[in-house]
């Protein structure tokens, strides 16, 4: 082998080495680009998924909060309507209660037609209690203001009762020590009050017939409440 051949062979080897290196480098570049794209897509997708899930959760929470808020508002609204309903019914009862004063209003020193009406009412209230108690001797309490009217009708009430049930007239003892409270006044609206009527009891005090106008109003009101509500709210869906 001469020098020229040796030199030629070396050049070939050098070219081969470079070519191998460049092929290797190229291979690395290509696979790098593939890895780059795959890696990027995977990571991007993973991040997006995470973000999407996070925001879906947040949006669900917004929806939930929105529903809760509306539900609370709706509930408050319903309560408000129900409260208004109760208020109007209470105001009716109060109006009726105020009217009771007109029923029982009278003057001490003069008897008027109105007094006759209330006086007869008192008599009927007493008779009704006597019919319920069916006692030969009873205690009676009334307002101090009503005392003279009660005393005025006591005998005739006892007599009417006796005739109705065919017994001897009962003894009716009027309590001159303890009276029912007087009618209501604005300045002490929370105190006990009695708008009129009577309370009768058996002598031993065990059986009581409360026939005050206020007690009667309570009973009537409770009994008529469904009817009243139906008139007011029959067409209203609360």
């Amino acid at each position, binding site marked *: 082998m001469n020098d020229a051949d040796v030199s030629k062979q070396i050049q070939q080897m050098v070219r081969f080495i470079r070519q191998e290196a460049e092929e290797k480098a190229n291979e690395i570049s290509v696979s790098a680009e593939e890895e780059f794209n795959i*890696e990027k897509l995977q990571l991007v997708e993973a991040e997006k998924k995470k973000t999407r899930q996070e925001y879906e959760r947040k949006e669900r929470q917004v929806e939930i909060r929105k529903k809760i808020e509306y539900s609370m508002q709706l509930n408050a*609204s319903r309560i408000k*309507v129900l409260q208004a309903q109760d208020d109007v019914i209470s105001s009716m009862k109060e109006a009726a209660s105020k009217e009771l004063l007109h029923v029982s209003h009278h003057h001490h020193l003069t008897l008027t037609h109105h007094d006759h009406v209330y006086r007869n009412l008192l008599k009927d209230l007493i008779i009704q209690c006597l019919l319920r108690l069916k006692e030969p001797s009873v205690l009676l309490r009334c307002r101090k203001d009503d005392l003279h009217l009660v005393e005025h009708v006591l005998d005739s009430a006892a007599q009417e009762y006796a005739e109705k049930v065919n017994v001897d007239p009962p003894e009716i003892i009027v309590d001159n020590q303890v009276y029912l409270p007087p009618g209501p006044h604005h300045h002490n609206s929370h105190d006990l009050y009695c708008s009129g009527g009577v309370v009768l009891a058996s002598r031993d005090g065990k059986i009581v017939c409360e026939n005050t106008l206020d007690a009667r109003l309570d009973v009537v009101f409770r009994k008529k409440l469904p009817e009243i509500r139906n008139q007011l709210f029959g067409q209203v869906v609360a």
Partner: protein
Amino acid sequence: MDPFKGQGGIQMLLIAEQEAQHIVSNARNLRTQRLKQAKDEVEREAAQYRSHMEDEYQKLISENTGSSGSNVKRLEEETDAKIKNLKKSTSKISSEVVDMLLKYVTNIKT
């Protein structure tokens, strides 16, 4: 054989081999760099996407605040209308009811 010539040939081969290593090494470095670049681009795109989602979310919130407000307002109006109707009904039948109650209170069965 000229000893210098032989030395030169081997030297050339060694140099070529070093250059080859360099080329491959560069390619590997570029790959590493590229992968890091991938992560950077991912972060940028993820941030972009998140920003977009946040905008949508804030829009949703402001819409909900608006619609929630309008819902509440409508509810209040409905409630007030109901109560107004209620008071109208009450005023119509109030004296009638009071009279009925009083009638029963004062109508005593004996």
